[in-house]
């Protein structure tokens, strides 16, 4: 049960129960659909920019606790951040989810809660879906992104 508790930390369960920034942004500058074909999960990410800053961000969709919590934690963290900072964060989260070589940097703060996913290769995509959608949104993509 230990690894399970590592995966489903209280902060994950909390963000799954009450996702932050859940819903659409009517005047979003970027709207991106993310799909995880493995499980059929879908999410839509809404980003409103103010110059080089993420002024507002939200998401909608269905998914497992890992994917909902990851989306929720992500939106909470990047709201008000610069695009550069956000892209930098994407890299750090990506490293944390896919390699266990290093301790996750302190800078990740609450996002470290997602680290438990590393022990579950089949669940990494659940945690990374929102982040891939975010990167696509900030790069100006308009199409759907997938975890594949």
């Amino acid at each position, binding site marked *: *049960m230990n*690894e*399970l508790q590592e*995966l*489903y930390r209280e902060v994950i*369960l909390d963000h*799954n129960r009450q996702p932050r920034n859940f819903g659409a942004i009517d005047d979003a500058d970027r709207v991106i659909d993310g799909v995880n074909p*493995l*499980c*059929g*999960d*879908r999410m839509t990410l809404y980003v409103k920019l103010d110059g080089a800053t993420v002024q507002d961000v939200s998401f909608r969709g*269905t*998914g*497992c*606790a*890992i994917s*909902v919590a990851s989306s929720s934690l992500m939106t909470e963290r990047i709201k008000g951040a610069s695009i550069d900072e956000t892209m930098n964060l994407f890299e750090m989260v990506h490293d944390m989810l896919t390699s266990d070589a290093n301790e996750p940097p302190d800078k990740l703060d609450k996002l470290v809660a997602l680290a438990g996913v590393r022990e*579950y290769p089949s*669940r990494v995509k*659940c945690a990374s879906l929102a982040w891939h959608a975010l990167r696509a949104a900030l790069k100006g993509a308009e199409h759907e992104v997938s975890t594949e």
Partner: protein
Amino acid sequence: MSAVATKSPDLAPITDIASLREDFPALQQRVHGQPLTYLDSAASSQCPQAVLDAVVRQQSLDHANVHRGVHQLSERSTLAYESARERVRDYINAASEHEIVFTRGTTESINLVAESLGGSRLSAGDEVLITWMEHHSNIVPWQMICERTGARLVPAPITDAGEIDLEAFDRLLTDRTRIVAFVHISNALGTVNPARELIAKAHAAGAVVVVDGAQAMPHKRVDVRDLDCDFYAFSGHKMFAPTGIGVLYGKERLLEEMPPWQGGGEMILTVSFDGTTYNALPCKFEAGTPNITGAVGLGAAVDYLARIDFAALEAHETALLGHASERLTEIDGARIIGTAADKASVLSFVIDGIHAHDVGTIVDAAGVAVRTGHHCAMPVMDRFGVAATARASFALYNDDDDIDRLILGLRQAVELFR
């Protein structure tokens, strides 16, 4: 050394289904420190020792290419391969071994029919009738051939219980329907379709019938002549044989008139740059070196199944399904998806507030293997308004202890999430 496992002499049929579990080495292991509770046989079943032995023997002593050499190993290998075909023919009661085409599995079997039969018979204005409960492998090949030929793909709706809406089926089956393709047992819902009735209706309308039998083979004793289907597709790995081998049964008359599908060795008689003449059935549809070892494994699986009393097997699985369905009511917020009156031992369910993927990960920690997701049947998920379900599927080797451990795992999921 005999290359061919001879058919068992007339031993008494096995009625003690519970005794079969010990034949499966995979089920004797522990995962995450817990006894393995394997409830994912609808995705892929485990192999009994007899199948593993046949595979090892073929690959270690009898391996050579088939239908090619004159040397001893080639003779043995050919004999083993063709003997597997004969045992499959006998098992499903096909009229001739010409009607048994070895493929990679159900998906390839359906693609073969869609491409070869569909490609030569369909044109604009024609329709292919399927159902709303099909696996993607019985949707996409038809979509592809319809796109190419201008024919229309028509899905027959299903009821809230997950049964084919027969009135709608009758209405959608018209003189434009050229092909009817449906699943014998639904992988996502467990529904057992009234195959004989649907086949008779389709024939009365002048359509050719393709049955996806992947899920039916491990649960039912299938007799293709009794069903009177034109094609029956199935996979070895859902019926206790290895992956990568499957069968397309087709009536000889239809297979004869169908053009070859893939070209290459084995499927030809003569080749020159002026043209090629094709081999006779079933080789016409078996281009390239086949999965010889897989076929031998399938032959051994068929021998294994042929000894089982299927009335006892169905009683065993019905009891498991009943017990599991009842125990599931102990789980707060659990709901079964697929409540057909005639149902195989496939239990799809959702739990309020817990995504199927989380359910799958949590019960895995308790040693319980279930499938989670859309089960390659996205239209079914849409029909029931869910993104995914968890699915526990029971095979001949499962028992009540497996159900106890599943329920225990589900309780842990609920505890963790509430």
